[in-house]
């Protein structure tokens, strides 16, 4: 059994951050879990958390009145969920639902924003990493839009 302080530095998202910087991050972290089927966050609600997924699968969804929840992306272990805590208006843009038991480390958004304001080095490092995650999600979405497996030109 490991503590958050032991686990977090090994997570790919935090790769390359030095120990003092990691201490700042760990100070905003707490251990959480979500039962299978439960809602992690809802569209429009205040976004104050950033989740580092340890175990389990999460579906990022859009709710359509006619069709219910439509999945736009599947996220899982090793990935991070949520960046709306970083950019105004700090509200979730999607629903997130645990499709299996999810264990995660939750990082408090206000806490992290405060520490980034005080420590630009931390701020820049987190921004870089979040940007990289967003870039990967954007590429995934864009290439899916090409409908490469579709049958007609």
């Amino acid at each position: 059994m490991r503590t958050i302080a032991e686990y977090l530095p090994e997570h790919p998202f935090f790769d390359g951050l030095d120990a003092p910087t990691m201490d700042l991050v760990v100070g905003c972290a707490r251990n959480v879990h979500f039962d299978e089927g439960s809602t992690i966050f809802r569209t429009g609600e205040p976004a104050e958390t950033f989740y580092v997924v340890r175990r389990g699968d999460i579906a990022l969804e859009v709710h359509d009145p006619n069709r219910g929840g439509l999945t736009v992306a599947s996220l899982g272990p090793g990935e991070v969920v949520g960046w709306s805590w970083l950019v105004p208006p700090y509200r979730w843009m999607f629903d997130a639902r645990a499709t299996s038991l999810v264990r995660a480390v939750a990082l408090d958004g206000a806490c992290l924003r405060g520490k980034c304001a005080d420590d630009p080095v931390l701020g820049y490092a987190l921004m870089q990493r979040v940007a990289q995650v967003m870039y990967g999600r954007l590429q995934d979405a864009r290439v899916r839009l090409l409908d490469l497996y579709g049958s007609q030109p």
Partner: protein
Amino acid sequence: MTAGLAERAAPVDPMLPRRFHVVDTHLETRDTVTLSLVPEDGVDLAFAAGQFTMMHAFGVGEVPISISGDPAGGVLKHTIRDVGAVTHALVRAPRGAVVGVRGPYGTGWEVERGAGGDVVVVAGGIGLAPLRPALLQLAAHRSEYKRVVLLYGARSPEDILFGDDLDLWVREHDIDVAVTVDYGPPSWTGRVGLVTTLVARAGFDPHTCQALVCGPEVMMRYAATALVDRGVPPGRIRLSMERNMKCGVGLCGHCQMRELILCVDGPVFDYDQLAPLMDIREL
């Protein structure tokens, strides 16, 4: 120059098709059918996983189709998607129909090169069909490989091919299968996302693995890049390329990609050979 031509035995004409009878036709998805064929002359067509044949619909024409059956033997299978006049005719061929087959042609997946290490197979859309013989070979010789992982991306759940095979490979052959779709309806509880994003977190050792990739060229580029980013050497990634083919035997010139003649030098190549060519537009 032509010295010796008169003395050589008359060369075999590679353009004459062999007749095969359709013994089964299985609708895989709304536009894709698997034909099971037996040779009229009783001589089975032996092939290596990854090879293709030139399939002929009488009176319509000929197209290259990858073999999707078991290289260890059995009835000859081709999984065909309806995208043009010839494939339309083949997809609609009933039991008992006679089709022409020339081949097998081309280079194969060379699955054996992965022996002793992990094998990761990345398939996009109809790309799973040319990879099916490789997966059957991996399943049949499972103990020769360490971890075997299949990452399969389809357009939507109803476009997923070979669902029974996928279940079997998981249940009985210790193959890790991750399926993802570009778009999932509300009833779909599985993964949604591009198959290439599965590469980053799939469970395999990039330094000792052999990767096999097949799908639309754009998807293969991203998949190969994702594999290289994870540390797989480009020479250990094999891709199956596609170009216009008319003869299948290196005589008509159509399938050239620079100096590579796809039907003879390929269609399966190591990524280190392909990477510089794939960057040049309209090559």
